[in-house]
């Protein structure tokens, strides 16, 4: 749910990073945080367990600049990927404008990817959203690992609707900003229709 603030001349949009446990959602946000100019970002908030697994969400507010006289502010969230946190995951999707699905390229995580994608589809539906129409980007992460499956094989199994897809290695930033840019672009394009 985009929040258009005519009083402050701001547009606020919410983007959620989804995907199975340990796929690299938090790492995406950390990289964006590290590489963004201090004046354009707020604090990175991570509600995590003692072992650095996301417990509720990570949150990073970003100012991307001005479009048509309106400041564009993006609120980036990650969900907790571990299966048993489903109730929390659902809460984070509330009011979402765009979704990034971060897939783990490792062969051993293929089932977890598929299960998480189905979970995303179901949880979006419960909020009245539809994965076929919502701004959506697929990121194939952990491309650096020797156990990574070929990208076209991942794409065959995970592609949902011909969405923009990026290969990534989140800790070094490969593909991270391309992913963000692609989803932000779709979200802003949606405003055109409203």
């Amino acid at each position, binding site marked *: 749910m985009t929040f258009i603030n005519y009083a402050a001349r701001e547009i606020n949009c919410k983007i959620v990073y989804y995907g199975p446990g340990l796929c690299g959602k938090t790492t995406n946000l950390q990289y964006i945080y590290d590489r963004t100019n201090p004046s354009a970002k707020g604090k990175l908030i991570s509600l995590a367990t003692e072992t650095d697994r996301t417990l509720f969400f990570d*949150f990073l507010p970003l100012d991307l600049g001005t*479009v*048509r006289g309106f400041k564009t502010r993006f609120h980036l969230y990650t969900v907790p990927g571990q299966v048993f946190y489903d109730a*929390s995951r659902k809460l984070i999707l509330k009011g979402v404008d765009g979704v990034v699905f971060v897939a783990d390229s490792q062969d051993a995580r293929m089932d977890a990817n598929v299960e998480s994608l189905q979970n995303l589809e179901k949880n979006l539906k419960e909020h009245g959203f539809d994965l076929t129409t919502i701004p959506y980007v697929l990121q194939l992460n952990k491309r650096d690992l020797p156990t990574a499956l070929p990208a076209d094989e991942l794409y065959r199994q995970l592609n949902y609707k011909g969405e923009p897809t990026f290969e990534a290695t989140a800790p070094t930033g490969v593909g991270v900003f391309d992913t963000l840019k692609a989803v932000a672009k779709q979200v802003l394009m949606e405003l055109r229709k409203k």
Partner: protein
Amino acid sequence: MSDFVLFDEEFQQIKEVIGRLKMDAQAKVVFIVDKNGQQIAAQGDLESLDTTSLASLTAGNVAATDGLAKLIGEKEFPVLFHEGERDNVYISIVGQRVILVVIFDERSSLGLVRLRVRKATQDLERIFDAIQKKVEEEKERRHEGIDSPFAEITDDDIDSLFRE
């Protein structure tokens, strides 16, 4: 789902209501957040406060508590209260849409805050009803062909956001 829109007129009214609430309740800070964690308005000593983080955490807190309520068969918990050593936080839901947060210390009291919040909530509900009506009217007007300010966004506009 319809977007949330805030116009200048109502923004000023909201600021007035929460400014009055801050005085009447002798609070340090009063602010309003939508249920998705976007800050709508704030009054008080904001210098030392990261209001963006506050907004997101408040919304997360309310969302988690809402989930908890449903689990045990309650509709919602309309009020959350956190008591600290120095500061206290009083969180309440306005018209099932937005969240009102009052931060206060020993200069005020829970009783006073609760009383003043009740009064302010009625005023705020009226304003948010008016906003909703305006948004719906706006939408109808648009169907008659008046463009939104974003109707003309181009690929170039968007690409320029990402140019370093």
